[in-house]
């Protein structure tokens, strides 16, 4: 029997760090052959096991989203889990990794062309006159004459 910690997670699945509220701890058995990233576990039915949407498997030292739950005979629930790769990597040093960001909320360059940037189909024409207006409406004549003066 392996131990599983049942949580409630209110964060978006795309959040790197999860804020968790522990509901209970429960013993589980793995259903058939199972994988590290998408295991299926069997747990006794309880209010907590029905309510949880996020778990931690001590065997694997990893956090998982609860993707689906199937109620079976014997007052048991089969939980289909999906590894939270972001939080698991975060707990294993992801923050120290060197990276290049394509987009960011805090470190960006507004002068980079941004194809996602929403722009209206119409613009605002602006006219700006030069500071001097040297041409006169009153025209004068230049007469060119052959020969010297």
């Amino acid at each position, binding site marked *: 029997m392996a131990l599983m910690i049942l949580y409630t997670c209110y964060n978006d699945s*795309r*959040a*790197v760090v999860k804020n968790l509220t522990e509901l209970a701890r429960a013993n589980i058995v793995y259903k058939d052959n199972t994988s*590290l*990233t998408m295991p299926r576990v069997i747990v006794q039915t309880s209010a907590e096991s029905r309510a949880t949407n996020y778990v931690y498997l001590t065997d694997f030292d990893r956090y998982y989203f609860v993707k689906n739950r199937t109620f079976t005979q014997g007052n048991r629930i089969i939980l289909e889990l999906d590894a939270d*790769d*972001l939080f*698991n*990597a975060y707990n*294993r040093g*992801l*923050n*120290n*990794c*060197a*990276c*290049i*960001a*394509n*987009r*960011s*909320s*805090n*470190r*960006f*360059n*507004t*002068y*980079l062309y*941004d194809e*996602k940037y*929403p*722009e*209206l189909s*119409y*613009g*605002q*024409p*602006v*006219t*700006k*006159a*030069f*500071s001097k*207006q*040297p*041409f*006169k409406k*009153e*025209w*004068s*004549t*230049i*007469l*060119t*004459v*052959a*020969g*010297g*003066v």
Partner: protein
Amino acid sequence: MSTFTFNFGGKEVTPLPFVFKWDYNLTWSGDDNTPSDAYPNYKDEFSTVLQVGDIIDVKELLRSKYEEYRANREIVSETFTAITYELDGTNYSIEYTIGYNPSSPNILTFYIANPSGYPTTTQRLDYRNENENQWDRLEHMFCVYMIELANMPDFTYDGKYLLNLCAFRPSFWWSTTKIVIDKLIPEIEFHEELDRIPKSLFDVQNMDSLTRSLIPVMYGTANTLAVNNFTDEDETVRPCGISTHYEFDNVSAGEIKVNGYDVDFSKIGTETPEDTPSGGNSWSGGFSATSTPIGFPNLPSIDSLSTGFIHAYYLAPSVAVSLANYMLSNDFIDNVKKLMGNPIDYLCGAVMLPISVGGNVEDIKIGGIDTQIKGTRILKQYTMIDCGSIDCPMLWKGFPDFAPSTKVSIFLPFIGVRELNTNDVMGGKLTLKYYVDNLTGACVAIIRCTLTSSLNRKLDSVLYHFSGQMGVNIPITASDYSRKISNIVNGAVSAVGGYVSGSAPSMAGGVASIVTGSLMRPTINRSGNLSGDAGMLDNYTPYLIIEYPYQSLPANYKALNGYASKIGGKFSDFSGYVEIDEINLDGVTITEDEKERLLQKLKGGVYK
């Protein structure tokens, strides 16, 4: 209002009132940090919003505050943001603190305290003797100088130049207000001689009188000198004082030169840039593109008039009529025919121009005959016409200010509308000059582009040359007239043809671009060629046409979507929404399958 003067080098200097006129909304607010039970009427807080077009006179503001405090017998120490402005995405402010205590009812103290980390400027006004015009002392506390710093790398950072607010009096120290002059003093009138020196703040004629012995203090270092040999393009030495610096991103390089610094300006460049549009890491060789400034051409020193084979007169309209009447009189025709034959043979051409041409006022002579009519004999065939300059401001402070989002074109009288490369002009200044052949009316418009923006672009060169026909030829003979009619028809066809041929294919491209994105708005030719007669009928004012885009930015766009980054660092450096381009997962002990899943999620965007 009485005038306050002060003496420099034996000459009296009379600064003009210190008045700002806003061209954008401002908010100022503050609170009283000196509550006292003994003065229950003290003000807890106040706020004021300045609207576009409002005028604030700092002197009058302080005067009204003083009178209000004195009437209410309040202890007051109000700090408020008098000015807020944005520079490259960072907000700056100018704060004033006004202090008053009824126990010293005739004294008002105020500070200009900002930005954080800078020393403050303190001034104390004593109103016990109104005749001393203490208020007027404020008038000369700010004089604005723009300096050209091309050879002083320590004096610039983040691509910005530095603006100096100078106080030419020893008691006024450490004025450390950052000001973007183009935004705060939009109505300012500058000296032509020294460009960015504002007339409203200082009389340039008096600058000659400033000497080193009357040096304002810089950065609070009492003995630090900041007097420089201030030279304009004529190399006239104009010593001046500098009290401190302010960052500034729009100065025209080369227009003002400052020589002979004997102050440690390296301190100035040590401030951390507050908003760097960092693109991350430079190439190993760095990037340094230095332009050779290409200025406006000089007029030719030799022309056809100097050969002596022809001469020309500039005729005001009334003179032209008198001369025409004279030339059609029997007197003139008979005289010339007797001497030389057909008088028309002596007239090489007549052209009308919308400009004044200088020369010597003399009797007009045709074929050796003195007409007894006065005209201006012009001495130079070519004339340069200065149309001044114009700023092309960035509004979005980002990529939408540039192509393809923003399009820039220019209307040139007698030439037409011509498209400019947005990158050449955006965030910079355009200077336009026409070069005109006075005898034929041919012209060329030359545009110099000056870029000294915060984007580290530096340019001060002529980039555009457009030719046209400014003059309208006057038919002297019947054959001239028929040729002219033909030219008019051809010119009209050319103008219309220019529009049609330019617009049709562009519209087709525009329709296609709608499918691929709204950024590619169609480019429409706004005119064909305007020359001669057609140009005469059109507008005479050169102007810039800028088509800025409108954004449709949803709320939370930055938080949920982020902006384009391409910035490198540790994953921990990023917060909020982040999409990863590349990441090195060394040290993260997970399986290969997990790494693939992780990369897929990081590249799709995550929240931190």
